[in-house]
């Protein structure tokens, strides 16, 4: 435990010092602090020796228990590791004034949340983490949309905390398993809403696609790869305190997970901002994790293990993609995919790493995204073969559809942004970012490959038995690599000494194709967005085309979040109207306020004397 506390202290100290004249203590403190936390978590996972500590505080509350058990260590390992990578990237990305204070504060409070077992301190650290993230998201607050997104994030996270307060009141002061609490069911539902908000599960996901695109890219990466996992951690922690779960909880997670997975991928397909696509894809992946957890609660322990593995896979790959999107934004000054294109030629390293991440999250072999998808399907099949096949069927259907759609999504994300001809001059002039930003991306690629190779070992550590064909898959992956290499070699050999010409792209004999004639992102995903149009409410505004030689016309489209527009905004407006009505009695005259107090007291007296 001392090294963990030192790590936390270093993070905080570095953050505080970076507020002064020099910036470097923030980076140094952050990196060393995270390295210590990483080492502590790795040690716990290998030895299963759980360090503990108790912190006294002067508040009239029980002392704070800190414990690092397997669950905490797993999340701490992922968070600290990805945090270090994001810190490396942030150093180049932010240039002059990186916001080390809030970055350190966010990761420090996040680590504290993982260690803490007292509900009050948990909530405080939770709130610090959320606020630090708020200040990071609103860094560019001179832009209107940034302020708007920050506001939505703040409101959403506080609504989530509101439900968590209720949940913790019902649960008691300790986050430990001591018997089944009285209102276990209420605790679960409140935790599902409260932690689900942080994780970005549908229907409480609305902040995620707002906040991620406007945040600076390393911050989006940290939020998407690390912070939203905390919602899942919270849910798992509360579940571990609640004893045996009734099947309704499992079903709730399954349904919420399927909704998130499908909704996330469909809305992602309809977006034109690369970072917004990635944000919706996080909703999708959190949904897949929830499906795994749901299967786990329904009696298929492999589901829980796969969910954990997917958290890890998604964390690494999504961080990678957000860092790649950050490089695009940094170099081409846009995240609008209709203004990019042809970046693979101009940014080869970024393009290659982005391709790996995209293929991984699309669930394609031979990366860890496929491993978790494969295992999730295997778990569903196990459920289908049992005497109660419905949950398995439900999970298989959702995962199957999401798999196909995410292939469409990530072929769009990579294909439109990195392939073809550039659609704007700024995209034409883009080059690879400096090595300080490239190295973290390459590092994450290598991590993803290592995680794939280590997946049987990881699965064993997560307490699931192997034999589900995973080792067979890994052997086949090696074979796939060999085969593809050999075929490519054969192709090179065949082409040797033969004419190889370079010509314009074939466009039906038309030789002057321009970037304006290229297929756009919108047209690429149109068949799918039309197919699911009744869900998406895709809006198109288009000028009329008149005459044989039409003059100029306009076209614009948007896919606003259905729930935000149709449910939350009307609700909030109704709340605002109610608040306006209440303002009548809040007019600032003190005498009248005293009268209110008097009337209330008299009323209470009458009630008690009854």
């Amino acid at each position, binding site marked *: 435990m001392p090294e963990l506390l030192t790590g936390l202290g270093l993070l905080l100290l570095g953050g505080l010092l970076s507020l002064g004249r020099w910036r470097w203590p923030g980076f140094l403190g952050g990196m060393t602090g995270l390295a210590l936390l990483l080492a502590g978590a790795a040690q716990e996972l290998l030895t299963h020796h759980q360090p503990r500590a108790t912190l006294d505080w002067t508040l009239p509350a029980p002392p704070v228990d800190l414990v690092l058990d397997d669950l905490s260590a797993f999340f701490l390992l992922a968070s600290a590791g990805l945090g270090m990578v994001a810190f490396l990237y942030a150093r180049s990305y932010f240039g002059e004034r990186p916001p080390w204070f809030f970055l350190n504060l966010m990761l420090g409070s996040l680590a504290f949340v993982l260690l803490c077992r007292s509900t009050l301190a948990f909530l405080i650290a939770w709130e610090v983490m959320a606020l630090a993230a708020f200040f990071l998201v609103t860094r560019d607050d001179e832009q209107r949309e940034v302020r708007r997104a920050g506001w939505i994030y703040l409101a959403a996270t506080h609504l989530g905390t509101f439900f968590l307060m209720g949940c913790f009141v019902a649960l008691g002061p300790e986050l430990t398993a001591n018997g089944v609490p009285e209102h276990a069911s209420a605790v679960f539902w409140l935790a599902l809403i409260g932690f689900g908000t942080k994780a970005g599960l549908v229907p409480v996901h609305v902040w995620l696609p707002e906040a991620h695109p406007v945040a600076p890219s390393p911050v989006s990466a940290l939020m998407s790869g690390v912070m939203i996992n905390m919602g899942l951690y919270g849910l798992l922690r509360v579940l571990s305190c609640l004893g045996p779960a009734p099947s309704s909880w499992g079903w709730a997670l399954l349904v919420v997970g399927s909704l998130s997975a499908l909704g996330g991928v469909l809305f992602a397909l309809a977006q034109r901002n690369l970072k917004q696509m990635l944000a919706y894809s996080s909703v999708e992946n959190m949904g897949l994790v929830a499906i795994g957890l749901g299967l786990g609660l329904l009696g298929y322990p492999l589901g829980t293990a796969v969910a954990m593995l997917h958290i890890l896979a998604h964390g690494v790959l999504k961080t990678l993609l957000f860092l790649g999107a950050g490089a695009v934004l940094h170099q081409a000054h846009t995240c609008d995919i209709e203004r990019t294109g042809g970046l693979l030629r101009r940014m080869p390293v970024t393009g290659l790493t982005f391709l790996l991440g995209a293929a991984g999250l699309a669930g394609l072999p031979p990366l860890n995204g496929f491993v978790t998808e494969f295992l999730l*399907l295997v778990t569903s099949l196990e459920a289908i073969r049992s005497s109660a096949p419905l949950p398995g069927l439900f999970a*298989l259907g959702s995962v199957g559809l999401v798999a196909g759609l995410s*292939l469409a999504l990530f*072929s769009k994300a990579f294909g439109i942004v990195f392939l073809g001809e550039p659609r704007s001059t700024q995209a034409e002039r883009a080059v690879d970012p400096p090595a300080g930003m490239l190295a973290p991306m390459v590092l994450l690629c290598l991590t993803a490959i290592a995680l794939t190779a280590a997946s049987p070992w990881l699965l064993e550590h997560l307490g699931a038995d192997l034999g589900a064909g995973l080792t*067979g898959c890994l052997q086949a992956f090696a074979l796939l690599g060999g085969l593809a290499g050999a075929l490519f070699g054969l*192709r090179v050999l065949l082409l040797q000494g*033969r004419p190889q010409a370079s010509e314009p*792209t074939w466009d039906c004999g038309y030789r002057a194709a321009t970037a304006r004639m290229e297929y756009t992102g919108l047209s690429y995903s149109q068949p799918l967005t039309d*197919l699911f149009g009744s869900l998406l409410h895709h809006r198109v505004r288009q000028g009329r085309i008149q005459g044989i030689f039409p003059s100029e016309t306009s076209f614009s489209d948007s896919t606003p979040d259905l729930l935000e527009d149709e449910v939350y905004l009307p609700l909030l407006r109704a709340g605002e109207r109610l608040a306006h009505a209440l303002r009548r009695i809040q007019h600032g005259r003190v005498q009248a306020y005293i009268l209110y107090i008097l009337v209330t007291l008299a009323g209470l007296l009458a009630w008690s004397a009854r």
Partner: protein
Amino acid sequence: MNTLAAVLCAPLLAGIINKVKAWFAGRQGPSLWQLYRDLWRLLGKGAVYSQTSTWVLRLAPSVGLACCLLATTLVPLGGWPALLHFPNAWLLMLGLLALQRFSLVLAALDTGSSFEGMGASREVQLGALAELGLLLCGAVAARGDLTQPVLLLLAAALFLLFLAETARVPVDDPNTHLELTMIHEVMVLDASGPDLAFVLYAAALKMWVLASWMVALLYPAAGPVGIVAVAVLVGVVESSTARLRLVRLPQLLLSAVALAGLGMLLLVEAPR
């Protein structure tokens, strides 16, 4: 064993289909070995690349062919076991076919051509629905104890999905010459020489893999005869039906999904 058969005989399927079509039309038709000749000729040629393209276009055909080759090692055929056999290998087979699709789509987008973008866009739409259908079919078979009605439903669903995945009529027309209406063919407009040979051979292998998987699920005893039967059936369908309009295609695929789902419900309802 199936791998060897696939590697040697896969291009024959296209020949059989074309022969059946010719027979229906009262023509002589191309030789059974036509695709072999085409492949051989293409392997001996040089190549032309689009100026827009990158290494993606050059690498994709090799990756796609590697996927399909590996997929043949995962499917048994009649009495011949698969080269690699482990539980749930068919999920990896679907994953490999998805990777092959991904590589084709990216190669198409790499050229920056609007035609190829169009084909890619259609391919991912139909692929998403077909993948769901294939998964459901596999799940039905994995639950086991198939009764006669379930087998019939499964066969219908699998055949529809087979037509879609192998780009045949009524989903796609391999003979059309109009870029605007094509799906699979339009994605490979800019492939040439050995690359085009790889793409065509991969498509033939994919057809063999899906056909042998179908036979393995429905009537394993048929073995290679089953595969030939599937090819003949495709030829008959292609001679007797017209291509569907593009907007109708999702409905066709969703009906295949619905058939597989219905089969699953029948299985679930039946007491074990």
